[in-house]
C-alpha cells in the first residue's frame, strides 16, 4: 500500500464529512417544508398547523409586541372564561423565547421578517440542528464518524420526528428533541472526559430542555438510572461522580428558574430518582473511603449489617405508610404500573388520541426499517461497551417501553432507534469495506504469489461483500423513499386546511375552519364569548381573537366537564347554563356532509364520559342504545334531545346526500333519526361552505319565562289587598 495515497484520502475526509453533514442538514430542512414552499410543490401556504401551535404562536406574538416582562406577567382573560389563565406561570416558554430572540436578532441585522414566518420555519431549522447533535452524540459514543453520519441522516428524516416538526408545526417538541439529544451528547462528553466544563454545558442544555418541554422528566430520570447501573455493575469512576454531581446540582438549580417547574424540583416524584441517586453516590464514595481506611474484611461485615437493617427499615416504613394511608400511589405512577388506570379513571387523558397505546403498525410507520436494525445496534452497544454505548442502550430500552404506553412518546424513542441502527449498520459497513480495501492484497496473494507477500489479514469473497454493501445501500434508499413519502403525504397537512383528492387526482381545498374563524372575527362583538369543545379553543383565540370558555390547556377538569354537560343536556338546560356562563355563541364541528370524520358527533361520547365524572345526572348508557352509539332512528331519546345532536343536525334533513337520501350522514353512514329539528333557544348564524363549522347564537331569555305573569300577578294582588290598597269587589 502506498502510504502517501492513504494519507491524502484521509486528509480529505473532514471535507467530505462537512459536505455530507451540510447535505444532510439541507435535506432535513427541505423534507419538512413540503407544505409551504412553492419551489415545485405547492401544497398549502405558510401557516401555523394544528391546535397547540396556535397558542404558542399567539404567545410569541404577544412576546414580540409587549416584551419579555409583560410576557411573564401576562394574565390571559381571553381563555377559560370566566376564570382566565396566568399564562406566564403555566407554560414552557422555551420555544416562544427562541422564536422571539431569532426574530429580534434578524430585525436588528436588517432582515424585516414577519414573526409568523419565524415560527413556521423554526421547527425545520431545529431539525437540522438535531441531526448535527445526533452526529456528535454517535461519534462521541462510537468514536467513528461514519456511524455519526448515518445517525445524522436517520435522525434528520425519521418520520416520527417529521410528524412534530414540519414547517408550521410550531410546537414544543420541535425544539425539545434537539435539546434532548444535545444534552445527552454533552453529558456523555462530560462522563468521558470528567471535565466540569462539559457537565456545566450539559446542565445548561438541560435548562433549555426544561424551558422547552415537560418531557425533560425523561432526562432527569434516565441519567440517574444510568449512573446507578454503572455503579451496580462495578464501573464506577471518578469521571462519573464528577459529571453526575455537577450536572445534578446545576441542573436542578437551573430547572427551578422556570416558573412552571419551580419548587416541583423538590416536591414532585418525577425528580425523586435524581435526589436519591445523588445521596446514594455520596454514601457510596464515603463507603469506599471507609473501606480504604478499615480494610476489606471488617468492611464487609459492616456493610452487611447496614444493608440488612436498611432493608428491614424500608419494608417496615413503607408498610406503615401504606397502612396508615399516608403514602398514596399517585395517578401517574399507577398509570405506568397499570396502563389501564387512565382509561378507567381519567377520561380526559384517555380521550386524547396521542395518549393512546401504540400498535406495531405505528412503530413500523414511524421508524420504518430502523426498527429492524435497532437490536443489532443494541448488541454492539452491550458487547463492545463503554459508558456512552451503555447509555444509548439504556436510553433505547427505556424509551421503547414509554413509546409502547403512549403514541406521542415515539418521538423520544426515535433518536435512540436512529442511533442504535446507525451503530448496527455502520458496524456492518465497517467490517465489509475492509475486505474491498484488502481485496487487491488478497488477490495478489492468491493468484500471483510472490515470495515476500504477507498473508492478508482478511479474506472474504468479493461478490458477497458487494452484495452486502449493495443491500445496505438499497435499504437506506428504501428508508429515504418511505420518509419522503410520509413527509409529503401523511404529515404535511395543516389540519385547519384540508385537501382531498378527486378520482382524477385533482385537489379540492376545504377551507371551512378559516372561513368560520374569519366570520367570527368580523361579525361578532370584540368581547363575545364562544363556547366550543376544548379542541378548538386555541384556534378560536388565535384566528378570531375572541374569548373562549375552554381550550387545549386542559387544566380545569370541572370547567371542561361543564361544557360536556351542556352539550349533553337538552336545549332548555343547556341554554340556562350557557346564560349563566355568559356565553353568546356555540360552535360545533360537523362532518356529516363532507366526509370529515374527526367531528364533534364522533367525539361526543368522550364529552359525555368527561361530564359524567362530575355531573351525576349525565349517564353514558342513556346515550347508547344496547351498547351501540347511534344517530339514526334507533337512537335513544336522551341522545335525540342532546344539544350536540340538535345543533349538528339542525336543518340537515333538508339536504340531499348520498344515494338521493335526505339527511344521510356520510361519516356515520346512516340516515339521521330526527330530520325536523326546531331550535327553541338557539339561532343558526353561520354555517361554512362544507358544513364543517356551524355557529349558533344563544337567544336571550324570553320575557314570559322570566316574569311568570300569572302567579306573580296574583301574589302581588293579594299582597296589595292585604295592605288595603285594593278594594275587594264585595265590599
Amino acid at each position, binding site marked *: 500500500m502506498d502510504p502517501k495515497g492513504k494519507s491524502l484520502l484521509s486528509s480529505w475526509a473532514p471535507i467530505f464529512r462537512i459536505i455530507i453533514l451540510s447535505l444532510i442538514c439541507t435535506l432535513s430542512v427541505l423534507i419538512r417544508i413540503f407544505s409551504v414552499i412553492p419551489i415545485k410543490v405547492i401544497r398549502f401556504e405558510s401557516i401555523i398547523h394544528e391546535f397547540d401551535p396556535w397558542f404558542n404562536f399567539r404567545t410569541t406574538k404577544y412576546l414580540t409586541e409587549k416584551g419579555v416582562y409583560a410576557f411573564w406577567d401576562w394574565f390571559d382573560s381571553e381563555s377559560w372564561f370566566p376564570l382566565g389563565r396566568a399564562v406566564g406561570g403555566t407554560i414552557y416558554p422555551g420555544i416562544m423565547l427562541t422564536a422571539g430572540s431569532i426574530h429580534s436578532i434578524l430585525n436588528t441585522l436588517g432582515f424585516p421578517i414577519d414573526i409568523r414566518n419565524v415560527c413556521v420555519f423554526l421547527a425545520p431549522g431545529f431539525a437540522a440542528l438535531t441531526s448535527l447533535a445526533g452526529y456528535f452524540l454517535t461519534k462521541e459514543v462510537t468514536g467513528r464518524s461514519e456511524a455519526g453520519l448515518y445517525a445524522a441522516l436517520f435522525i434528520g428524516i425519521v418520520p416520527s420526528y417529521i410528524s412534530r416538526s414540519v414547517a408550521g408545526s410550531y410546537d414544543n417538541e420541535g425544539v425539545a428533541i434537539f435539546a434532548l439529544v444535545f444534552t445527552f451528547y454533552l453529558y456523555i462528553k462530560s462522563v468521558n472526559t470528567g471535565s466540569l466544563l462539559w457537565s456545566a454545558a450539559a446542565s445548561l442544555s438541560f435548562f433549555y430542555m426544561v424551558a422547552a418541554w415537560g418531557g425533560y422528566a425523561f432526562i432527569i430520570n434516565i441519567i440517574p438510572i444510568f449512573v446507578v447501573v454503572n455503579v451496580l455493575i462495578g464501573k464506577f469512576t471518578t469521571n462519573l461522580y464528577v459529571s453526575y454531581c455537577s450536572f445534578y446540582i446545576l441542573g436542578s438549580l437551573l430547572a427551578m428558574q422556570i416558573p412552571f417547574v419551580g419548587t416541583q424540583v423538590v416536591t414532585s416524584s418525577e425528580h425523586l430518582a435524581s435526589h436519591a441517586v445523588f445521596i446514594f453516590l455520596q454514601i457510596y464514595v464515603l463507603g469506599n473511603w471507609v473501606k480504604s481506611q478499615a480494610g476489606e474484611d471488617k468492611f464487609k461485615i459492616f456493610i452487611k449489617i447496614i444493608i440488612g437493617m436498611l432493608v428491614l427499615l424500608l419494608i417496615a416504613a413503607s408498610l406503615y405508610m401504606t397502612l396508615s394511608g399516608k403514602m398514596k400511589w399517585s395517578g401517574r405512577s399507577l398509570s405506568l404500573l397499570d396502563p389501564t388506570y387512565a382509561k378507567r379513571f381519567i377520561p380526559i387523558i384517555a380521550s386524547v388520541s396521542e395518549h393512546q397505546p401504540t400498535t406495531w403498525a405505528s412503530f413500523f410507520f414511524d421508524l420504518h426499517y430502523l426498527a429492524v436494525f435497532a437490536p443489532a445496534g443494541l448488541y454492539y452497544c452491550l458487547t463492545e461497551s463503554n459508558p456512552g454505548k451503555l447509555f444509548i442502550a439504556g436510553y433505547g430500552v427505556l424509551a*421503547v417501553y414509554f413509546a409502547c404506553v403512549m403514541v406521542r412518546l415515539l418521538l423520544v424513542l426515535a433518536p435512540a432507534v436512529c442511533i442504535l441502527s446507525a451503530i448496527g449498520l455502520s458496524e456492518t459497513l465497517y467490517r465489509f469495506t475492509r475486505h474491498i480495501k484488502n481485496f487487491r492484497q488478497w488477490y495478489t496473494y492468491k493468484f500471483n504469489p510472490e515470495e515476500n507477500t504477507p498473508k492478508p489479514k482478511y479474506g472474504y469473497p468479493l461478490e458477497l461483500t458487494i452484495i452486502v454493501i449493495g443491500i445496505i445501500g438499497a435499504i437506506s434508499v428504501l428508508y429515504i423513499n418511505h420518509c419522503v413519502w410520509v413527509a409529503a403525504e401523511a404529515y404535511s397537512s395543516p389540519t385547519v386546511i384540508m385537501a382531498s383528492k378527486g378520482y382524477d387526482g385533482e385537489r379540492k381545498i376545504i377551507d371551512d375552519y378559516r372561513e368560520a374563524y374569519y366570520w367570527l372575527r368580523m361579525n361578532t362583538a370584540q368581547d363575545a364569548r364562544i363556547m366550543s369543545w376544548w379542541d378548538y379553543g386555541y384556534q378560536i383565540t388565535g384566528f378570531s381573537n375572541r374569548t373562549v370558555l375552554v381550550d387545549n390547556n386542559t387544566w380545569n377538569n370541572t370547567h371542561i366537564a361543564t361544557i360536556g354537560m351542556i352539550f349533553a343536556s337538552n336545549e332548555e338546560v343547556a341554554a340556562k347554563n350557557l346564560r349563566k356562563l355568559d356565553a353568546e355563541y356555540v360552535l360545533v364541528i360537523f362532518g356529516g356532509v363532507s366526509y370529515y370524520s374527526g367531528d364533534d358527533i364522533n367525539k361526543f361520547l368522550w364529552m359525555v364520559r368527561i361530564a359524567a365524572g362530575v355531573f351525576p345526572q349525565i349517564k353514558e348508557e342513556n346515550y347508547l342504545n344496547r351498547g351501540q352509539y347511534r344517530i339514526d332512528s334507533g337512537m335513544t331519546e336522551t341522545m335525540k334531545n342532546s344539544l350536540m345532536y340538535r345543533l349538528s343536525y339542525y336543518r340537515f334533513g333538508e339536504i340531499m346526500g348520498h344515494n338521493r337520501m335526505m339527511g344521510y350522514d356520510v361519516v356515520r353512514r346512516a340516515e339521521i333519526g330526527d330530520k325536523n329539528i326546531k331550535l327553541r333557544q338557539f339561532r343558526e348564524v353561520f354555517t361554512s361552505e362544507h358544513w364543517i363549522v356551524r355557529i349558533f347564537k344563544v337567544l336571550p331569555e324570553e320575557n314570559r319565562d322570566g316574569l311568570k305573569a300569572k302567579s306573580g300577578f296574583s301574589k302581588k294582588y293579594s299582597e296589595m289587598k292585604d295592605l288595603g290598597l285594593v278594594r275587594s269587589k264585595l265590599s
Partner: protein
Amino acid sequence: MVRLFLLICCLGVVMKVQCQEQQTKVETLLELSKTHDVISLTAETFKKYVVDQSRQYIIVVFFSSYMYKSQCPGCQALEPIFNEIAYSYKALGHTKPKDQNENKAKPVFFAFLDYGQETQIIYQKFGFSNIPNIYVSTKSFTEETTSYSIDRSKLWEYRDGQEITSNKILDFINKKTERDVTIQKSLLQTILPISIVLTILILIFALVYFIKHNFTSPKLWWFGCTIIYITCMAGVVYDIIHSSSLIGTNPQTGEDEFIAQGPRSQYILEGFLMSFLISLGSLGLILLNSTANYKNSWLMRLIGIFSIALILYSIYQVSFAYKNKVSWYTPSFDPPSHYKKGGLIADQGNSF
C-alpha cells in the same frame, strides 16, 4: 273479657314466636356472614330468608351463574365488585342489628343465588331474561304462581353492552339501603401493591446475587433487552387496554383473520409475530457481521448467504404485512400516472 284476654295472649305468643323467629333468622344470617361475605342461597333458603314473612333485615341478592360464567362477561365483571361491596358493608359494621324498625339501621346481608335446575323457577318468577341481576330486598314479598310482587325500582338488571363499574353498583345499593358506604379495601388488597413492588425488588436482588458471575455477561443483557424490545414493539399495552383477541374474524366472510385492518388496531398474535419478524432482521445482521471476521471458508460463505436471506425475508415480510394492513400505504417517488402534472397553476401539487 276473658276471650279478649285470651286473644291478646294468643297474639302475644304468636308475636313472641314471630319475634323469636326473626331473631333466629338474623342470628343465623349473622353467623353465616361471619365466615362468608356473600351467603350462598339455595331455593329453600331463598324462600326462607328472602321471600318469607317476618324479618327485620335487608338482603341484597346477586343473581348469577357459576356454570355459565365464562359465556357471560357481565357476571365476570360484577362478581368481584359485588364481593367488594359486601366486604365493605361488613367491615363498616352494617351487618350488625341495631334498630330493626328503621330501614337505615337494619342489618344488611349479601347473598348469591346460583342459576340451576332448582332455582330456575325463581329466575322465571323474577322475569329475568339475562344475568347478572341484583335485587335489594328491604321487605318480604308474596309469591304468586307466575311472579313475585316485588318492588321493581329496587331491581338492577343487566343490559347487553352496559359498562359495569363499582361506583355505579355501589351507588345503586347505597341508595336502596339508605346508607352511605364507601368501598373498603381489605387488608390484603392494601398491602398487595406494596408487597408486589417489594417482592419484585427482592427477586431482582436475589437474581443479581445468584447470577453475579454471569451478571456482567453482555450477551445475557442483550438477550434481556431484546425481549423487552420485542414485547414493547408488539404493542402489549395496546392489547391489554383494548383487550384484543389472539386472532380475529373477518366481519364479511367470517373466516379467521390474522391481520387487523387499519394501523390503529391489531391482534395479539399479529403484534408478536411482526415484532419478532422485525427483530429477526437484526439477528441476521449480527450473524452476517460475525462472519466477516473469519477466514474465507464454505461454511462462512453459507452462513453469510443465510443471514442475508434472513435480513431480506424480515424486511420483505414486514413491509408486505404493513401494505396489506394499511391500504393507502403506497410509498413511491413518483405520483401515479393518471395525476395531472404541469406548471404552477395546472399542477395540483402532485409532482415532485
